[in-house]
């Protein structure tokens, strides 16, 4: 039993896959145990290796065969305790939201430095998460409008706690976590934790039709 963070990865680009793995290999607290080139390959591996239970699974969106988005729910059913972190090339809000509602715990952009990726892994492992203003806006819109027209007036979501609403608001405004933490007299970690919880709320509130309609723009 090691205290290392076990990370798995599903990424079809060999260069990225190898370099991320190498970089993680440089760290002492994180270990990449398996990499797969596709969701199918991963599932096969899971079936074979029943004790494969990584803490974090880095999941690319654009994959051959089943896409990362489609794979979330299946992987989640097989690895319920694993935090799935989406790897995005750019911030495709629709896909991210979709992923978050499907069960992803966080997302990380590939364009950031490997160091940031590693930091991100650690944050998620520790219970936090990351949200960009764009994603925050999308989530906000989705949560608020998908409930009832009343909430639009009040500009709040009933499924979120007050604190979560506050944080979401500030994230929409583009405030950095430090600032949000200062304003709310909480720590940055607490902010990140709240973000993860907001994502969890998305899982619970995920109604397949609703999100599909929202993403198509019909819930606006």
């Amino acid at each position: 039993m090691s205290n290392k963070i076990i990370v798995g990865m599903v990424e079809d680009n060999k260069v990225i896959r190898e370099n991320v793995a190498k970089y993680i290999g440089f760290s002492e607290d994180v270990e990449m145990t398996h990499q797969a080139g596709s969701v199918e390959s991963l599932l096969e591996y899971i079936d074979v290796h029943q004790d494969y239970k990584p803490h974090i699974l880095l999941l690319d969106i654009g994959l051959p065969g089943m896409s990362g988005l489609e794979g979330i729910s299946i992987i989640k059913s097989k690895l319920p305790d694993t935090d799935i972190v989406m790897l995005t090339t750019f911030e495709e809000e629709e896909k991210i939201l979709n992923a978050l509602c499907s069960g992803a715990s966080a997302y990380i952009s590939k364009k950031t430095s490997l160091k940031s990726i590693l930091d991100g892994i650690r944050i998620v492992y520790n219970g936090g998460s990351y949200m960009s203003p764009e994603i925050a806006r999308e989530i906000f819109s989705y949560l608020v409008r998908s409930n009832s027209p009343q909430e639009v007036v009040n500009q709040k979501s009933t499924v979120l706690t007050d604190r979560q609403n506050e944080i979401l608001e500030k994230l929409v405004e583009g405030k950095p976590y430090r600032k949000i933490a200062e304003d709310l007299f909480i720590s940055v970690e607490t902010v990140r934790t709240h973000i993860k919880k907001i994502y969890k709320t998305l899982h619970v509130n995920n109604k397949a039709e609703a999100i599909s309609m929202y993403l198509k723009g019909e819930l606006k």
Partner: protein
Amino acid sequence: MNFRRLIFLFLIPLNTYCQPEGSTPASYKFENISYPNGLSIGYTREIIQDTTGLLWITGGRGVGLHTFDGRNIQTYHKDNATRHFPLNQSIHARKLQDGNLLLSDWGNNLYLFNPYEKIIVDTIQGAGPEDKYEIYDIDIDPSGTIWAITKPYKEGDFIYVLRSENSKKFTVIQKIPVNNYGQIKARDNTIFVTADRSVYLFDAKGTFLKKCDLKDGNKVVSPYGFTIDQNNTLWLKSAHQEEEKARSSALFKYNDTLKEFEIFNQVEETALINTENIVSIGDDMWFMGVHETLWKVNMKNFEVQDYSSNIRGLTDKSFYILNIFKDHSEQLWLTTSMGLIKLGPQRALSYNHVLDSKDGYCTENCYVQSITENDQEMFFSYLYKVVAQNKKTGLTRELDIPLGKIKKGSPQESIWDEGSHKLSLVGDKLIWMDQLYDLNTRECLDVLKDQNDTRTVNGVVNSDKLWIAPYYPRNINELLYVYDLKSGSKKALSPDLEFYLDDFPFKILESKIQNKVWLTTKSQGILSFTKQGKFIERIHEDSSKEYYDLFEDASGTLWISTSTGIGRLKRNISEVEHFNLEIKNYQGRKKIEGIYSIVAIEDKQLWLGGQNGVHRFNLQSLTFDSPNIPGYLKEMECMIAAGRLSENGRIYFGTKNGVVSFDPNTIEKRTNVNNKLPLAFRQITTYNKKAKEEKVVLASVNNIETIVLQPDDIWFSIDFFLPNFENPDKTFYSYKMEGFDSDWSLPSVDNMLKYTNLKPGDYELYIRAGDDPEFLNSIERKLRVEVKEAWYKTSWFYLICILGLVAGVFSLMRYRYERKLQERLAIEKLRTKISSDLHDDVGTILTGISMQSEVLSYTQEGKEKKALTELSHMSRDAIERMRDIVWALDSRKDKYENLLDRMKVFARNNLSNRNISHAFEIGNFKADGFINPNIRQQLYLIFKEAIVNILKHSDANNVTISFDKKQNQLTMTIQDDGSHKPVEKSEGLGLMNMEKRSKDINGKFNMYYENGYIVELIVPI
């Protein structure tokens, strides 16, 4: 023969002006009816008058059928396209109850012919095969059964008697051997057939009854013509020509009791010779035959009249007369072998123009002022003379009353038109001018007893007194005189007139009931005096009214003719009640008519002579009416107080041109307008522009009510007529199309109308016919005319076209819009695709490079590490920039919120890392609105530049970014709280770039210091 000479006398045309009153000549005016070009219509045989009054005339072989309406003969012939008759000829004709004609054509069959549609509606088959037999004579019995005699086409020695019930095929009743052709006649229930010298009798069913032999001594009897007189007696004439001495010329009368034909001797032989056919009309029997022979015998007194010479005078050729026919208007017609002859009775003129300028009694001035009479003569007063007319002989003479007393230029001469020169008669004495003229002794006596007093007088006679009112009384005292006829003395009355009378009286009337004498004057009202001469009163309420003539009825009411009509002065009332006579001319203008003379018929009617003709006033209903009077009586201008009811019952009026007289009981002229004969349409023709042909719409008299014209029917015409055989030129027609004509057409004898180019719509056409151009007595007919609209001109079609056009335009616009939209979407799709491709391919590669170099740098030291780290940064930078480009291209990011999000991300990622706090102040506007991609891009890059400059060169700790959209303008400001100007040291590219980008989007860029440095951008949108 004495008779002949008498008749000859009658035939001399008499001078109507000298005509003895009350006699009616029994002469006929013979007229040959021919075509307008003068050609005779040829052989005519039988005549039928249809229900419109039109005459149908059959002819001889090859002739066809004629119609005559009084003016025009129209011939219907087999070869004529527009007037087509289906048979070669028409020989016999009978009228059937349903209005159709039964015709024979020297053929085997009989035909039922509809005279309105002019088509054969049915054929009754004859006895034998076609071309073998020909029907020789026909008749119809009272039950409607048709009988005929048919004989073999070529010579044969027998006839068949044929019978057809219900117009079905003929059945042969009997075959009779004959040498000569037979005749057939139906009377009541017996059918008579002549054959050689016998007559065969059959009953209505066809059962043979009897054979009667005709005997006339030793003479050969050739029965020719049957006739039935008004007593239902049957007559039969034996044909006879003068050359044939041995042949009988007898007239046979059928004895109903004995059932035999007996010779009738009471008709003079001259009428019987050369005659073959007989026709009974009223009291007369007409005998006609060869050599233009025509006799009329009155079967009551057996007076004979010979018209043969009259007829001979019509042509140079010899011909024979076949038949005589009387039409609805009592006109008589002869059918002959050379044409149709009309016998127009010369009626007595219902009025007489007794004297006029042609008589030689006047030269310039033929005004007859006054009329009187005794037992022998009528007396008429002219300006300079009195003319007497013998009542019996009609001869006129001038009375030798000396005129020398009238001096030229004297008042007597100049007032002749004002009702002067009145005549009065007492016993044998005539009063005229100022003379009392003894008709026996021819002596004159000066009534005024003064040779120098040449005033004329107006006088009225009581039994022994003569009231005299001289013209132009010199003074008041001379207004009235009483002249004692016995003593010969005159005495002036002195009426107590309170006014000056400078007028002269038109009429003096002595009341029969009260002690009153009235006097009418021109402008000073009606004066009344006692018979003793005492002035009673003057009735004069209206100086514009003139009073002319007087009549007192049995109740003592005085009737006055005035300048506006009639006035009534009741007994013991001093006010005149006026009844105005309003005349309307045929143009519809009303005028008030003055009445100059009154002639009263008992107390019922007043006959009035006025400025324009004769009128009537009914004393019970107190209304005027205009009697239907002929010609001159309507135009004559009557003189004042110049009317008289003569002892023989005739009315006389003195007029400006002689005298007229008429019998008031018979004056009203016969009218052609009555309910028996309607205004009929003969033919309606339309002309179709496309087909370029005329189409004839035949009109049945009572049926047609609507004419329908198709869009291409350019014109239509109607031939109409009211049959008038007596005076066809005196039937006037007029028509009006409601909706097209503003008024009736001018009255004309032309009986055709034509309308061209009527606009589509519904019209009502009115046609009227009358005796006179004012249509006072007329009948009218209405016809609806529907002009159809070409389908492509109807408003429906226009509507459809407009709708179609609108729909078309709309569709076109939509299509173009759709296409544009498609194009735009395609472009956007392309943009998105490019950005996606970039995103996927290049982005991935750059990410790989960045990661690879980052990993490599981890294992290196020193310069290599630095270089690889640099490489990693550069790659990430490249990714970032490419991302910007992709973002700019991405059409899904075309909203304000996309721009703002991106700015926020950039600010957070870059400013926060350097611990520069920042805040966004976003204005209140619709963030999901569309922003022009170019503006979006430039704004973002300017923003980036500004932030980068702050990062690089400023010492600020706080940055505020404000963004607002108001109306047509975007405002972006980036404010820091630093003291260093955030520009490149070289003051170059950065600022220039920002300015350049601003210009690119027509924006205004400004940078200034105000508690920090402010970059401001205002962009119009």
